[in-house]
C-alpha cells in the first residue's frame, strides 16, 4: 500500500495549499517549501521501495506496483520537483539575494505573479495524474490519470491571464485536449463494449484472455476502439497529425509550465501506452503497427524540418519535442512484438530515453527562461544567445551540452538514449525506420548546433547579464552532470531499467478481485 502513499502525500499537500489559498495566505516561501518537502518525502518513500522484489497490483489490480513502476514514479516526481525549483524564484515565491550590480534593475518577478496556492496545488495534482497514468493497469485508470494531468496542465498553461498568449495557449490546449480525451473515452467505451465489459489490461490480452472468443467475434469495433485510444494518445504526445497545438501552446504558456508540458505528460503517456500496447493487445497488433510507423516517420520529419526555420527558442524546442516524440514512437512499436527480449529492450530503452530527455528539456527551458528574463521582453528570440559564451561561459557550456545531447552526439547521454532505442528497433526488424530516424538526427544537428554557433562563435553585440538563482543553477548543474556521466557510463541507469523492465514484462498483470 505504501506504493500509493506518495500520491496520497501529494494530494494532501495540494489540498492543504488550496485551503491556505482560500484563506488568502500568500507567503510564497511556505508554499514552495511545502511542495519541496512533499516531493522529497514522496521520493524518499519510493526509493525505500526499490527493494521490491515481487511485483504486485493494488486497488484490485488497477495499479501496477513493481520496480519499474517505482522508477517511473521517481522520474515523474523529480520532474515535478525540478519544475517547482525552476519556477519558484521567478514567480516571486522566493526572493533570493539579488545580483549586486543591479544598476539596471529589472523585475525578477512578473507583474502579477499567480497565487502560489494556484501554482503549487495544480503542480502537485498534475504530478499525481501523471504517476497514476504511468502505473495504470486498467484503461479507466489510464483515463483518470490522463484527465487529472491534463486538467492540471490546462490551468497551469493559463496562469498569466493578462498575457494574451497565455490565455490563448490555455484555451487551445483545453479545447483540443478535451476533444482528444473524448476520442479516447469513446475508444475505451468501445473496447469495454466489445470486450464483454472488461477494461483491465490483463483481459485485453488476446489469447490468454477468458474472453478471447468475444474479441474475435466483434473485431472491427474493437479495432476502432483501439484506434480511437491511439488518437487520444497521439494527441497528448503531439504526434503528427495531431501536433498543431504544440508550438502555440508551448510558446504561450509560462516557460516553467512549458518545461513541464514537454516532459511530464510525454513520459507518463508513453509509459502507459507502451505497457498497454505492449502487453494488452498483441492480437490486434498488426494493423496499427504500419500506421504507427508512418506516424513516427511523419512526426520526426515534420518536427525536425519545422524546427530548422524557427527563430523563437520556445517554438524551436516545441518542434524538437515533436521530433523526439517521433523517435519515441519506436518504443510502443517494438514493445508490441511477441518476443520478450525485445519487449524488455524497448521498455528499458524508453525509460533511459525519457530520463535523459527530461534532463535535457528541463535544462533547456530553464536556461531559455533565465536568458529571456535578462532581456526584459517576451521575444525568446534565438538572437538573444549571440556571444553568450563570452559573458556567461558556464551557462553557455550547459546549454551547449544540452544541445549536443539533444542532437545525439557522443559522449553525451542523448547519444545512448537514441542508441538503445535504435538498437531495440533494429533487432525488431525496423532497420529502415531507424535509417530514417538517423537521417532526421542529422537534420536536427543543424538547429541544435545553431545555438552553439550563436553562443560561441558569434560576437557579443548586446550586453547581457543573466542571473541564475540557486534553485535553477541546481537544476542546470544536475542535468549537466547527469548528461555527461550517463554519456560515458550509461550502464548505471540502463542496467537498472533493464532489470526492472524484465521483471515487469515477465509477469503480465492479473486482475484480482477484493
Amino acid at each position: 500500500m505504501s506504493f500509493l502513499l506518495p500520491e496520497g502525500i501529494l494530494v494532501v499537500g495540494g489540498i492543504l495549499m488550496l485551503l491556505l489559498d482560500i484563506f488568502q495566505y500568500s507567503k510564497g516561501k511556505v508554499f514552495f517549501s511545502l511542495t519541496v518537502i512533499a516531493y522529497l518525502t514522496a521520493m524518499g518513500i519510493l526509493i525505500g521501495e526499490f527493494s521490491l522484489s515481487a511485483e504486485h497490483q493494488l486497488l484490485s489490480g488497477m495499479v501496477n506496483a513493481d520496480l519499474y513502476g517505482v522508477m517511473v514514479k521517481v522520474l515523474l516526481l523529480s520532474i515535478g520537483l525540478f519544475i517547482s525549483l525552476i519556477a519558484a524564484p521567478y514567480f516571486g515565491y522566493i526572493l533570493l539575494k539579488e545580483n549586486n550590480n543591479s544598476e539596471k534593475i529589472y523585475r525578477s518577478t512578473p507583474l502579477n505573479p499567480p497565487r502560489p496556492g494556484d501554482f503549487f496545488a495544480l503542480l502537485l495534482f498534475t504530478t499525481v495524474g501523471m504517476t497514476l497514468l504511468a502505473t495504470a493497469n486498467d484503461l479507466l485508470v489510464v483515463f483518470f490519470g490522463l484527465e487529472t494531468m491534463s486538467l492540471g496542465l490546462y490551468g497551469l498553461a493559463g496562469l498569466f491571464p493578462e498575457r494574451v498568449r497565455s490565455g490563448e495557449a490555455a484555451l487551445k490546449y483545453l479545447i483540443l485536449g478535451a476533444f482528444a480525451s473524448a476520442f479516447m473515452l469513446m475508444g475505451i467505451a468501445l473496447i469495454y463494449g466489445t470486450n464483454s465489459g472488461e477494461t483491465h489490461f490483463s483481459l485485453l490480452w488476446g489469447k490468454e484472455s477468458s474472453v478471447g472468443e468475444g474479441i474475435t467475434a466483434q473485431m472491427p469495433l474493437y479495432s476502432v476502439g483501439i484506434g480511437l485510444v491511439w488518437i487520444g494518445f497521439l494527441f497528448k504526445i503531439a504526434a503528427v497529425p495531431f501536433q498543431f497545438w504544440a508550438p502555440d501552446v508551448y510558446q504561450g504558456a509560462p516557460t516553467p509550465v512549458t518545461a513541464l508540458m514537454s516532459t511530464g505528460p510525454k513520459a507518463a503517456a508513453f509509459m502507459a501506452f507502451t505497457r498497454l500496447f505492449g502487453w494488452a493487445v498483441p492480437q490486434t497488433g498488426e494493423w496499427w503497427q504500419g500506421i504507427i510507423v508512418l506516424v513516427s516517420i511523419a512526426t520526426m520529419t515534420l518536427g525536425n524540418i519545422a524546427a530548422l526555420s524557427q527563430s523563437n527558442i520556445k517554438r524551436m524546442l516545441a518542434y524538437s519535442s515533436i521530433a523526439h516524440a517521433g523517435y519515441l514512437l519506436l518504443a510502443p512499436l517494438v514493445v508490441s512484438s511477441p518476443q520478450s527480449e525485445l519487449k524488455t529492450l524497448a521498455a528499458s530503452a524508453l525509460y533511459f530515453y525519457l530520463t535523459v530527455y527530461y534532463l535535457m528539456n528541463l535544462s533547456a527551458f530553464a536556461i531559455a527562461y533565465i536568458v529571456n528574463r535578462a532581456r526584459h521582453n517576451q521575444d525568446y528570440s534565438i538572437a538573444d544567445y549571440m556571444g553568450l559564451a563570452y559573458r556567461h561561459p558556464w551557462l553557455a557550456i550547459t546549454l551547449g551540452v544540452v544541445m549536443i545531447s539533444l542532437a545525439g552526439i557522443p559522449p553525451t547521454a542523448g547519444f545512448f538514449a537514441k542508441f538503445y532505442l535504435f538498437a531495440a528497433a533494429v533487432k525488431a526488424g525496423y532497420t529502415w525506420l531507424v535509417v530514417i530516424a538517423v537521417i532526421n538526427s542529422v537534420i536536427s544537428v543543424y538547429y541544435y548546433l545553431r545555438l552553439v554557433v550563436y553562443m560561441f562563435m558569434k560576437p557579443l553585440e548586446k550586453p547581457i547579464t543573466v542571473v541564475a538563482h540557486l534553485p535553477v543553477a541546481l537544476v542546470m548543474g544536475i542535468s549537466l552532470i547527469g548528461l555527461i556521466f550517463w554519456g560515458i557510463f550509461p550502464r548505471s541507469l540502463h542496467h537498472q531499467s533493464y532489470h526492472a523492465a524484465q521483471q515487469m514484462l515477465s509477469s503480465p498483470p492479473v486482475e484480482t478481485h477484493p
Partner: protein
Amino acid sequence: MLDELSLVIFLPVIGAVVLICLYSAPIRFHKYLSFTISLATLGAAINLWLQFDPSRGAFALNLSELIQFEKNLPWISTLNIGYHIGLDGISLLLVMLTTFLTPLCIWGSFGSIKERQKGYYIAFLLLETGMLGVFSSLDLVLFYLFWEATLIPMYLLIGIWGGERRIYAAVKFILYTMVGSLLMLVGIIWIGWNSVEGRVTFDLLDLLTSGKFSLTAQKWLFLAFGLAFAIKVPLFPFHTWLPDAHTEAPTAGSIILAGILLKMGTYGFLRFCLPLFPHAAQEFSGWMVMLSLIGIIYGGLVTVVQKDIKRLIAYSSVSHLGFVMLGIFSFNLVGMQGGTIQMINHGLSTGALFYLVGVIYDRRHTRQISEYGGLAKVMPRYATLFMIVALSSIGLPGLNGFVGEFLILTGAFQVHSLYGIAGASGVVLAAVYLLWLYQRIFFGEVTHPENQNLPDLSLREKIILISMVVFIVWIGVHPTTWMAASENSVRWVITRVVSPIQ
C-alpha cells in the same frame, strides 16, 4: 591505475578536466600545462613503441594474435559492449603520429591564437583523446563513440578560432561527417544483433572469428561503413567538405585535420571494412580504385589552379589520400604497406606544409599566392625548410613521400598496369602544383614591398619544423624501422580479404 594504453588515451582528457577545474588560472598556465600533458602523452606512447614487438603475429590467422597492449573490460553488459582496446602495427603507427603531432600543434599555437585561448587548449586535448581512442578501439560501439567524440572539438576549433567563413565550414564539416557516421551507426547496430547466431556482440575480435555475413549483408554494411569512411578520407566525390574545413580552420586545426582525422577514414577501411566484409570489399574494389584514381588526378588538377595557399594544400590532400586508398585497395602486400606508410608520411608532410603556411600567415595575414614573391631572399631558412617539405610531398627519393608512393604504384601496377600509369600521373601533377607554388612564392624578385622585412623563423618555429623534417628524412632513408611494425598486420588484412575463411 590505468594500463599503459588507457593512459595514453586518457591522459589528454584528464589534462582537459584539470584545466576546466582550474579554469581561472592564468593563460600561461593553461598553455604550458596543455603542452606538458601532450608531451607526457607522447612519452607514454614512446613507451608503447619501445615495448611493441613487431615480430608478433607473423602469418597470423586471427587478429587477436596481432593485438598488443590489450585490455577488455565490461562496459555496457546488457548489450555485451565492452571497453576493449588494443594496438597492432597499423594503429600503433597512427597513435605515434597523433601523439607526435599534437604537442607540436599545441606549441605552435602559442603565438597564433590570441583570443579565448583557454577553451582552445581544452578543446585540443579533448580532440586528442578522441583520436587516440579511435585508433585503439576494438569494440564497434566504443569505436563509434570515439569517432563521433572528435567531431565536437573539431567543430569548435574551426568555428571559434577559424578564418572568415569559419561558421559555414564548421557546420558543413559536422553535417557532412555525421550523415556518414550515423548510417554507420545503423550498420553497427545491425551487426551487433545479426552477426553471430543467438547472441549479441559488438566486439571486433569476436566478430572476426565467429561472425557470419551473407554477401548481400556484407555489401550493405560495406556501403554503410564505407560511406562514413569515404567522407572522412575524403574519397571523391565526398570530398567537398574538405577544402572549406581545412582553409578556414586555424593552423593547428588544419594540421590535425589533415594529419590525423583524414587517416581515421583510411584506418576504418583497413580495420573494419576489409576484414569484416571481405567479399563485398572484393566486389567493390574496382569502384574504389576508380574513385581513388579520380581523386588523384582530379584532385591534382584542381590543386594546380588554386590561388589560396591553404586551399591548394587542402586539395593536395585529396590527391594524396587517393594514393593511400589506391594502395589499400590493390590488395597486395606492397601496395597496402605503401598505403599504410603513406598515411604517416602524409601526416608529416602535409602537416608541415600547413604549419609553414601558418608561419607566413602569422606574418602577413594573407594566404593569396599573388601577395608573395621572392621570399627566398627575405626568409632563407624558411625557404629551405619549405623546399624540403614540398619535395617530400612530391615524392622525391630520399624523403618519406617517395617510399609510400613508390610502393603504392608498384602495388597498383601489379593489379593492372593502367592503374599504375594513372597513379603515376598524380605524382607529376604534384610536382606541377608544388613546384609552381614554390616558384611563385619564393623565387624571383621581391614583388611586394610588405614582404621586404619579414622576420625569418623564430626558434619555436624552427624546432617544430626541424622535428618534422627529421622524421621526413628518417622515413625516407630508413623506412624499415617504421614499416616493420605494420607488416604483419597488413599481411593479415590481405589474407583476410583475398582468401576469406567463409
